C-alpha cells in the first residue's frame, strides 16, 4: 500500500456523503490509503467515481463525513478552519486543471503569492520564485501575465506556485486535462522531476500515459478502490 518511507498522509475508512434532494450520495466509501514521503501516486477511474473528492479530502479542502485523516501524524479532523488553511499553505501544494492563476499578477507574482501569505520576507520569496520559474523552464516569462502565456506555460507557473512553500505533498487534479498531448507530456515530465527531487505527488487523472508514470496507480469505481498495483 505504501512506500518504504513514513506516511505523509494516512486516510482510514473515509466516507464522504453528499446530501442531495433525491437522497444522500456516497462519493467515497470506506477509503483507506497512505501516501509516503516522496511517493508518486496516481488515482485513476471513470468520471464521477470519487477521484477529485478523495483528492479534496486528502488536501484538507473537504471534510470526510466519517473516518480519520492524518497529515504528518496530525489528526486533521480536529483542526480549526484557520489551522487547516495554514496546513494547506505550508504542507500541501495544489495544481488544478484550470490553473487558477490570478490574471492581474505576473507569473513571478503568482509564484510569490503563497510565500507572501506564509510571511516569507520579500527578498527571499522573490529569489525563490525566480528559482522555481527557472525550475519549470519559465524564467524568461517571469514578467508575463497569464493572458500572455499558453496553457502549458500557465500550468508550469501553477506547478511553480504549488512548490512555493516547499510542500511535502503535491496534489494535482487532472493537471493535463486542458492541454494537448505534447504539452501534457511535458507537464507530466515536471511531476516526474518533482518526485525525483523528493516531493510526494498524488495525481488524479484520466490519462493512462500520465498514470503509468506513477509508482502506484489506485483505480476507483463508485467511491471505492477496485484494485491497487505498483507501477
Amino acid at each position, binding site marked *: 500500500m505504501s512506500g518504504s518511507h513514513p506516511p505523509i498522509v494516512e486516510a482510514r475508512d473515509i466516507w464522504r456523503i453528499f446530501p442531495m434532494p433525491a437522497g444522500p450520495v456516497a462519493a467515497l466509501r470506506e477509503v483507506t490509503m497512505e501516501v509516503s514521503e516522496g511517493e508518486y501516486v496516481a488515482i485513476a477511474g471513470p468520471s464521477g467515481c470519487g477521484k477529485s*473528492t478523495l483528492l479534496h479530502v486528502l488536501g484538507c*479542502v*473537504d471534510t470526510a463525513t466519517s473516518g480519520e485523516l492524518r497529515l504528518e501524524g496530525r489528526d486533521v479532523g480536529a483542526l480549526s478552519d484557520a489551522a487547516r*488553511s*495554514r496546513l494547506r*499553505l505550508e504542507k*500541501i501544494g495544489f495544481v488544478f486543471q484550470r490553473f*487558477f492563476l490570478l490574471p492581474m499578477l505576473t507569473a513571478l507574482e503568482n509564484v510569490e503569492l503563497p510565500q507572501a501569505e506564509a510571511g516569507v520576507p520579500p527578498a527571499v520569496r522573490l529569489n525563490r520564485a525566480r528559482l522555481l520559474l527557472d525550475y519549470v523552464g519559465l524564467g524568461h516569462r517571469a514578467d508575463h501575465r497569464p493572458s500572455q502565456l499558453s496553457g502549458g506555460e500557465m500550468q508550469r507557473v501553477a506547478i511553480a506556485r504549488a512548490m512555493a512553500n516547499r510542500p511535502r505533498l503535491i496534489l494535482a487534479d487532472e493537471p493535463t486535462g486542458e492541454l494537448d498531448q505534447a504539452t501534457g507530456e511535458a507537464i507530466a515530465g515536471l511531476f516526474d522531476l518533482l518526485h525525483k527531487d523528493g516531493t510526494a505527488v498524488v495525481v488524479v487523472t484520466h490519462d493512462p500515459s500520465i498514470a503509468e508514470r506513477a509508482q502506484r496507480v489506485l483505480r476507483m469505481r463508485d467511491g471505492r478502490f477496485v484494485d491497487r498495483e505498483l507501477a
Partner: protein
Amino acid sequence: MRALAFAWRSLLRRGGRSALGIVGIAAAGALMFDMLLLSRGLLVSVRELLDAFGFDVRVLASEGIPQSRLPIEHALETARALSALPEVASAVPFRIGEAEVAAESERPDEVALFAVGATTRRIWTVVDGRDLSGREDDALDVVVNRRLAERMNAGPGTSLELRGRCSATPSILPPVTVRIAGVATFPFDSGAQLTMASRFEVLDRLCERPVGEADLIMVASRPESGPDAAVDAIRKARPDLYTFSNDEVIERFERVGFSYFRQISTALAIVTLSFGIVLITVLLTVSVNQRLGEIAALRAIGFSRHRMAADVLWESALLVGIGGLAAIPLGMALSIWLDAILRSLPGVPATLHFFVFEPRVLWLYAGLLTGVALGAAIYPMWLVTRLPIAGTLRREFVS
C-alpha cells in the same frame, strides 16, 4: 502580497466596473457631504452673524416671534441701568421699523429702519461719511446702506423724505426729512435690502410710538465677565425681562427654528448612504460571484477565510475611499452653487450661508464613509468566507 495591494490589483483588473463604483460614490458622497454642511451650516452662520453684531446678550420684554413681542418700556433708562452692572460693557436699545422713501420711480421704496438709543457701540460699520452722533442738532441724521445710497443717488449730506410704515401700512403722519450722515455696511443686509439706521427720534416721529419704547436691548458683556455672567446679572436685576446669551439663542434655534434643515439633511444623507452601500455591495457581489473558482483555489492554496474577507473589505474601502475623496471638491462646488440659490431668496442676509464648512464635518464624513465601506462589504465578505472550497472547485470543473 498584502491584502491592500491585492485588492488594488483586483480593482485595476476590472477597471471599468471599479470606475463606475468610484463615480457612483463620488456623486453620492458629494450629496452626503453637502447634507453635512447643511445640517449645521445655518446655525454656524447665524452664530457668526450674531457675533458680528458685537453684542453677546439680548434682552426682550417677552418671548415669541419679533412681530408679536411686547416692547420694552423706558428702554433708555433700562439700558442705562443695565450698562451700570459690573458684568456689562454696553447696553443699546433697538427699535425695528419700516419706512418708505420717495424714489425717482413711481412707487416709493420700502426701507428697513433700525433705531438705536444714543450710544457709541454700533452693529454697522460706516464706510463713507460719519456715524450718528448724540448731539441734539443731529437727531434726524441717518446712516444708509450702499444699496440705498445708490438707489437714491445720494451720499453723506443729502436729505431724504421718509414716510413711516407702521403696522404694515403707510402712516398718515406727515413725512420726515432726514439727512444722510454716512454710508454703512450692515451685517444682516440681504442682497436687495434697503437699510437705514437712525436715532429713536426719527422712528418716534414716523410712527408716533410712545417715546422710550424699544423692541430689544442688545448687551455687550465685559470680556473679563463673559456673556453667562452678564445674563445672570441682568436676570437678577430685571427678572421681568427675558435675557438670552448668543449661545442660548442658538440653542433655541437649534431646538426649534432650524430643526427642519437638520431633518431634511439627515433624510437625504441616509438616502445617499443607502445608495452608496447598495452600489458597492452589488459591484463587489458581482465581482465575487464572477471569480468563485479563483477564490476557492486561493482558499485551497492556503489563504484563510480572514484573509479573503480582508481582500473584499479593502476593495470596498478603496472604492469608497477614492470615490469619497473625489466627492469632497465636487461637494464643495455643489454647495457653493446651492448656497447661492438659497441666499438669493428674498430677505436672506447677504452674510448668511446655508452650507458652512467646519472641520468636524470632515470627521463625520470620514466616519460615514467608513460605515459605507463596512456595510457594503458585509454581504460579499459573507459569501467569500462561507464559500465551500471543494464544492466550488467541483462546480468549476463541471462547468
